[in-house]
């Protein structure tokens, strides 16, 4: 898997982009009334890149400074990239042991809810006629 390292470290990658979009929004109505700090540990071989997401009554800010957190989410870089581009479901990643969450589970679920849906999800589907439904059923 490609890793952001060396001269490429400053280039936009899905992880920085994800946090940039969150920070840019500044406020997420979904989390009004909720406050939590999450630390993300993006494991890249021997290196660990840290991000902090601070939610305060719906206001959102992001830093790369270290510090205390209510929850820590740790995964290898490719898995974070997959989650942040909608290609890997965070809950599934936890069950498979790809994403480790420690501390407040409520905070971890807030992270999950910030993630995009799978690429190609349109929310639309073509109607199915009654005749089609009946033809799929064996006559009794």
């Amino acid at each position, binding site marked *: 898997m490609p890793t952001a390292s060396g001269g490429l470290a400053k280039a936009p990658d899905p992880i920085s982009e994800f946090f940039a979009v969150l920070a840019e929004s500044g406020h997420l*109505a*979904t989390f*009004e*009334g909720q406050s939590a700090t999450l630390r993300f540990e993006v494991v890249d071989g021997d290196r660990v890149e840290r991000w902090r997401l601070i939610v305060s009554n719906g206001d959102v800010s992001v830093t790369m400074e270290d510090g205390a957190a209510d929850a820590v989410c*740790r995964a290898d870089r490719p898995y974070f990239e997959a989650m942040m581009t*909608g290609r890997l*479901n965070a*809950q*599934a990643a*936890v*069950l*498979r*042991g*790809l*994403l*480790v*969450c420690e501390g*407040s*589970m*409520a905070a*971890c*679920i807030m992270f999950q*809810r*910030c*993630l*995009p*849906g*799978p690429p*190609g*999800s*349109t*929310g*639309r*589907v073509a*109607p*199915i*006629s*009654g*005749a*089609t*439904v*009946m033809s799929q*059923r064996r006559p009794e």
Partner: protein
Amino acid sequence: MSDELVQILEGNTFVVSDDRGDIEASLTDPTGLFSFDTRFLSRWVLTINGQRLTPLSTDDLQYFETRFFLVPGTGTVYVDSKLSVIRQREVADGFQEQLRVFNHQNEPLNLQIRIEAASDFADLFEVKDALKKKGHYQARVVDGSLVLGYQRETYARETRISSTADAVIDENGLSFGITVPAHGEWRTDLDVVVMASAPDGSAPSPIARRLGVRRDMARGLEKWIGRAPRLECDWKPLESIYRRCLTDLAALRFSTLTMPGRSLPAAGLPWFMTMFGRDSIFTSLQTLPFTPELAATTLLALAERQGTRIDDFRDEDPGRILHEMRYGELTAFEERPHSPYYGTADATPLYVVLLDEYERWTGDAKLVRDLEHAARAALNWIDEYADLQGNGYVSYQRRNEKTGLENQCWKDSWDSISYRNGDLPGFPRATCELQGYAYDAKIRGARLARQVWKDPALADRLEKEAADLKRRFNRDFWVEDGEYFAVALDIDGQQVDSLTSNNGHLLWSGIVDKTKARALMRHLLGPRLFSGWGVRTLAEGEARYNPIGYHVGTVWPFDNSFIAWGLRRYGYKEEAARLVAGILEAAEIFNGRLPEAFGGYERTSTMYPVRYPTACSPQAWSTGAPLLLLRVALGLEPHGDNLIVDPALPKWLGNLELLDVPGRWKRIDAFGRGRVDTDRHPHR
């Protein structure tokens, strides 16, 4: 072979064994030790000197504890046994089993005790659908424990079995060569722990801890029952039905990962020990007058997982309330969408209904303020995402065509929605009860907006939309020649014209024009729908009617409890009392534990209600049904800071007292005396 299944559970961990305490599962057999939707033991068989044991009796001590009294031999005639065995099992992070062997002779006994153990680590979905595993198995002996393991890529699960007494352990089980002194006893404590191995290579840990759940065993069943209102009734079976309901509700309580100290109702045992939007909401509505904390936790937990994005695989939309949450292997590998899955069209409007009903009972305006965004998002979902036909009605069609749910209403089997002639409509389907729920959500949302969120503009808009929906609904869904509401509109806007129990839910929702209510009542208590025990899901005479068809003729206690509530809402007190009578009498026959469904046979032809063949039990909303029926019979209705009591009880119930009903009035006692003649009390 013993065929009685004994089920004990704690959270989502449960054991299903035969009445000897043995487990001998096959891929399709639902016995075993299950936790987090995974089977961790599929074989657990006790022998003494190579012989299986025979049960003398089995005691359910608590819902999480069972005791088996056994003697050697498998014959039907007991010899005068020289020894006996007590096996006591308690569910925890797996289970603990205390095994005691008693020698009743005057001389010592030498015995070979053996416990065979194995696991297939099946996902619950695999047990249901008989699928093949993709990972590999390993059994090994580590530090005096037998470790059964399963691994697929980074997904790893383990069952660790250890014993306090010295054992010879091999890959298939534990052996004990023992001598029991004359009139003495030998004992060992067996510990079975379910584990998830760590992704980072560190040591495995109990799965509950790995997934962030703290166990909360000391939940005190008596304390739970003690907090609920006390019930006294001249008809004594009601007291034991009531206690059975509270005990089963305690067993069905489920803690989410994020709120370990609190619990909400899981849907049922054994397949549904997880969070279901619809089931948790309906059960919370039923139990509000008795155990309001279940509703509060349900509201919080569902908000926490409310949809935020478009995800076709999970049928997720912003604002949508989840359908089902699972933790097994197929979910882990995204072969099933339950992480969580959102394919339900009713949970979202019902969420708002529950929030309002909760506030009316408890006066907990703080929770309503805390959940304002969630409620607004749910209301928005109704208009923005649920109107798939563009005709102003809520309808459903799955976007995940492979593993999503075809029918996203409570009658979710393939043939549950049909025309009179048995044909099935296409998709999207706009079933009628969904329109009722959406109407009620708007009306109740308006009340919350006006009184709690201080947003009169939203309240006005919701009320206007509700009135418009009601007007259109009463025109478009009304089947003129039958005088009832069609079960759905199809994709051409045509009525799916069969007569169903859904009409009762419409009364409950309030969407029915007053002028039409009488006709509905007559259908619900008429010969085509009413069996004598309760209202059938589908009316006799419809092409697909089948008295033991899952949603096409059986009687569902949960369904009936809401229908009774609906009849009351439109002033049909005595008619509601007839449903109360039928379902409570059925509950007595089922020893207080109502099944999910029972046969729709005419009462006079079978005398006893016939249990639906594969219904699971206890089922949360069946457990809640007698509780809601009590509310209906006593006519309990919050009115400001007061509780109105307006009883209409079956005559044979005699005096009924429900003491210390909790709510915004603190505690109030409710009394009623049976005055309604409900035909008969035939089975005595």
